[in-house]
């Protein structure tokens, strides 16, 4: 685009972001502060993810952008357009074809492979923020590996409700060292992070933090031996492709209790239907 650098950000800013990314990859799960810039999209709408994507994107990359698992949700459309306009890179909706995937709230159903990078938009990078609002305090707790507060929260849930009540943004331990927010993905997606062959990068624009899960890193959802981690999905199959293992959106079809369940990952769903039609 005229008047702007490739992928919007100037090269000094990209270098600063890449330095933070390298540090983040070197210390899996640790939040690295970075000099987040004001972006032409609002804070909370993916400015962190956009800065990370802008900093790693090359002209040969193929970009996929999803929000809620879908390529056609308004914010995903807006961000994909932003990069098509400012970087002129090829875009795709196919998970397998993408070299960089920017996402909000989901990890694709299709298994990610080596060499792929998935960039998460992060609203609140601090997993302890609901228990300890002061970032200065939380930082110290991370330094000391003092996560007792979070274990107590899970224990209280189990003793009061019989189970952990966190259904998304379910905290994980990365590489046995740092407690990390996997971003508001459903807990259903958490197991996909564990020993994933892809590189997972997390950008929080408003809070100005970057963190990462390098390929093949152990990512464990917090639990107890006698109360192992459980992920939930709707107990239905996809009304469009018949998938029984994918995460489903619940669509309200009328005002008399009518419901329809369909894959939240639109590319996965479309791919299954195409293959079925071909057979």
């Amino acid at each position: 685009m005229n008047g702007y650098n490739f992928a919007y950000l100037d090269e000094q800013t990209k270098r600063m972001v890449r330095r933070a990314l390298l540090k983040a990859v070197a210390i899996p799960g640790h939040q690295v502060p970075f000099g987040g810039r004001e972006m032409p999209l609002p804070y909370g709408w993916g400015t962190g993810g956009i800065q990370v994507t802008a900093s790693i994107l090359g002209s040969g990359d193929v970009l996929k952008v999803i929000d809620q698992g879908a390529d056609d949700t308004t914010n995903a459309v807006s961000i994909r357009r932003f990069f098509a306009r400012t970087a002129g890179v090829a875009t795709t909706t196919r998970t397998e074809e993408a070299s960089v995937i920017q996402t909000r709230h989901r990890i694709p159903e299709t298994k990610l492979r080596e060499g792929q990078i998935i960039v998460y938009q992060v609203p609140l990078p601090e997993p302890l923020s609901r228990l300890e609002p002061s970032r200065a305090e939380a930082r110290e707790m991370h330094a000391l590996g003092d996560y007792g507060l979070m274990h107590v929260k899970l224990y209280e849930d189990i003793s009061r409700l019989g189970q952990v009540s966190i259904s998304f943004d379910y905290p994980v331990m990365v590489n046995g060292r740092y407690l990390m927010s996997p971003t508001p993905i459903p807990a259903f997606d958490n197991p996909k992070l564990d020993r994933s062959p892809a590189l997972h990068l997390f950008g929080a624009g408003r809070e100005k933090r970057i963190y990462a899960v390098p390929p093949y890193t152990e990512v464990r959802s917090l639990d107890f031996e006698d109360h192992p981690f459980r992920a939930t999905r709707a107990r239905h199959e996809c009304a469009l492709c018949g998938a029984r293992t994918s995460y489903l959106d619940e669509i309200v079809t009328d005002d008399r209790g009518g419901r329809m369940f369909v894959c939240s990952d639109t590319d996965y769903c479309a791919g299954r239907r195409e293959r079925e039609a071909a057979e």
Partner: protein
Amino acid sequence: MAYVAVKGGERAIDAAHAWLAEERRGDPCLPEIETAQIAAQFGRAVDRVMAEGSCHDRELAALAVKQAQGDLIEAAFLLRAYRTTLPRFAAAHPIDTDAMQVRRRISAIYKDLPGGQVLGPTYDYTHRLLDFRLAGTGSLAGAGSQEAAAPTSCAEETAAMPRVTAILAGEDLIEGDRAADAPAEIPMGDLTRAPLAFPAERDVRLQALARGDEGFLLALGYSTQRGWGGTHPFVGEIRVGEVAVEIEPPELGFAIDIGEITVTECQMVNQFKGSKTVPPQFTRGYGLCFGHGERKAMAMALVDRAMRAEELGEERTAPAQNVEFVLSHCDNIEATGFVEHLKLPHYVDFQSELETIRRMRREAEAAASPDRREAAE
């Protein structure tokens, strides 16, 4: 199928933007407003956008106000997103408000003082009565004897106007101006380049407040007056006017004037009982913002002083004294983004909440049913 309608899509976005443009333009029978008119006649709106947009440029701020339909936070956001793309070619010398071309200067602690009290263009002492002469394209020009002729220039322009804090400092009754005393080689923090970290020093705190939301700071400043972290303030001085901006290019070796900016400065003078190490003396709260923004500068000075509680050995009990709380929440661009992002789809997370609550209810019912059977037996 209904399912498709739930999703957004490119056409919906394009249509929404077209509608927005139409709404912004309003009734096409009326002439399109010129940005020059906004810059000239909506001065206080433009000033606020410059302050919170953190960029001193009246024309761009006026354009932002026009583009945002007068939504000042949206306008400040437009200006911020523009300023962040600008190259940094130099750091200016600290501006010298002592040498300000003063339009307005008042002190609430001395009846008269060198340079005098200059009321200047102020809403203070106006009666807040709607002036129907301004309705439509009405004007007060030539309204006659009721309006005193506006002075075209300040009569006492040439008189020296020392800052009130300097007068107090002459008697050693107020703490020193540590920023002025500090060696120049200590680099200033810059929030726009480095992330906020705690504890935050006063340079970074003042930068955050200067860019901060007027409404938020007003409420916090107000809270200190009502006992939530009281600072016993007096308005030492408020001054509004133009100051020169100087930079010193390394290849030149001397400072050159690159233009002037309009600023409002407020120096609050606050009671202080003294501590084990510091004798009783007045302390400072400082406010400075782009443009004419007295409410903002005053609120900033109150909050600045409140945030110095720890440094001055005062008990920290109120929100305005909590540096992390104030600095993390005073930026309205961050705040509006995060509050309004709740409009984005959250149906994946909501779905997981639905499933969790259904599962919990199923399990609660299953657990409750044997009890009921027992009770029936």
